[in-house]
């Protein structure tokens, strides 16, 4: 669905934000892009909808070279939710915000209405239909930004730091929505350094540092590699950090979910007790 082929991007200031990045993301995949602030995550995301075009190399979205398409054309395929959701709002009501891009994309008025209702319902915002977007809470603004994008049903949804400033309840909801979108077959890419959130979501993890991809694999493998994470200013999630202290007792250190950790601890403790009795 997405293919980066030796992509390098240099900002006009001379800062090299992406350096020879090659990676493919398949249709329906759920990917977390991780790395310290300034690693190149946002620059990567801006290449998905053509806001930025590679200085050298190629980005292909659904098989098409992004240099040949406009942002408007690419946006039909890739919807991007940026970190500061508020920056994108400018209309008097929630409903009009969602309608605006739909009308721009040329949908007929009855389709526009149906899509608005569907998207606001999915994001649990239907009660705010007539409210000003600026009166919504931080979490609601983020959901509205996502609703606007879902309304035109792009195949790929990319979110830049979706958990920043969100409390645990909002994160829980966000996690469920991401899972649901992924189950519906959409390709979802989130950039984040929230390790606990990623540990719960367990997606494919692409780890970036200084504009390069330094690791790519499943969450269980990458989030339990303390040394690798530390080199990217990321810490292990607490479950993995705890288990890694007990490896000398034969505990499984490659665990990031609470449930699996509990199961493996109880099993190991019983084993130890059993051996001692024998």
């Amino acid at each position: 669905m997405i293919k980066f082929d030796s992509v390098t991007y240099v900002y006009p200031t001379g800062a090299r934000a992406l350096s020879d990045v090659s990676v493919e993301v398949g249709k329906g995949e759920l990917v977390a892009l991780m790395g310290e602030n300034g690693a190149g995550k946002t620059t990567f995301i801006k290449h998905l909808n053509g806001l930025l075009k590679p200085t050298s190399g190629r980005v292909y979205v659904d098989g098409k070279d992004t240099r040949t398409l406009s942002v408007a054309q690419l946006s039909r395929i890739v919807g991007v939710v940026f970190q500061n959701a508020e920056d994108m709002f400018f209309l008097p009501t929630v409903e009009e915000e969602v309608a605006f891009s739909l009308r721009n994309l040329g949908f007929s008025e009855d389709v526009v209405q149906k899509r608005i209702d569907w998207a606001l319902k999915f994001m649990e915002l239907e009660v705010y239909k007539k409210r000003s977007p600026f009166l919504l809470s931080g979490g609601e603004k983020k959901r509205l930004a996502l609703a606007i994008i879902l309304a035109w049903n792009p195949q790929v949804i990319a979110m830049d730091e979706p958990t920043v400033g969100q409390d645990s309840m909002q994160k829980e909801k966000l996690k469920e929505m991401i899972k649901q979108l992924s189950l519906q077959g959409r390709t979802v890419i989130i950039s984040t350094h929230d390790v606990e959130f990623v540990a719960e979501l367990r997606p494919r993890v692409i780890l970036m540092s200084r504009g390069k991809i330094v690791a790519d694999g499943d969450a269980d493998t990458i989030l339990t590699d303390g040394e690798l994470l530390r080199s990217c200013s990321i810490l292990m999630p607490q479950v993995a950090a705890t288990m890694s202290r007990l490896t000398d007792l034969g505990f499984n250190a490659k665990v990031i979910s609470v449930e699996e950790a509990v199961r493996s601890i109880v099993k190991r403790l019983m084993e130890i007790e059993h051996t001692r009795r024998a």
Partner: protein
Amino acid sequence: MEIVRVEGLTFTYSGSEVPAVKDINLTMKEGEFVLLLGPSGCGKSTLCRCLNGLIPHFYAGKMDGKVVVAGMDVTKTPTYVLSQHVGMVFQIPENQLFSLTVENDVAFALENLGIPRDEIKRRVDFALRAVGIEELRGRSPFELSGGQQQKVAIASILALMPKLMLFDEPTSSLDPVSAKSVVDIISSIRKEFGTSIIVAEHRVELLADKVDRVIVMQEGSIIKDGKPKEVFVSEEFTPYGVPVPKVVSMAKGVNRHLRVFNDMPLSPEEFEQGIRGFLYDKVR
């Protein structure tokens, strides 16, 4: 000695019908380290603003009750006096910085207070050293990383040597390593200078084993107040949508099968001790 006394505090922002905080009663001893938890919009920031005088001096609204900080009635004390006793560090450090160099930013408030020049120099040195950013003193705050900027913001407050420091989600925009080092700095400020500290923060994993007390707010009220172990362990706690450190969930899960933890762990270190202690007791 009491650093904070709040009695029957209710505040409603003008233009709003619902109070942002209602009937808050709270006392805090000097040197206490408090974690303030609760969902967005629960009143954490409003409470902090009442403690440093932004409410009622800058935010309009209706205020009832009494707020006494470091022996001063907040409503009757001008903010420039309060700021020498109560300092606040905000969520987004960039908004708090504006000078051309780190050093000037840290010195700014001191200059405004008319403190003598050599005293300013002494305090700037002290604050930069305390947060470990002496080598950044000549740099522009705007070319620094988010974590470094947050440290500059902390240093500029610390230079005022306040008795009470308030932190409103100080790590939310930082990567995990920077977040941890900011939390370590906050913790060392308390240890070294005995500063009273309130941190409003969602990342409980970073703070659970460092604070003396956890206060949970919901819809403008305090719904729980106690030692971290009591608050995180109580069964009815999770439904409020307030996060519990993962080690607490793990320990609870293990205890359902085997009675391993008599004392709830608040960090990976304490979890490890619990497991090793359990195995050791078994051998004996």
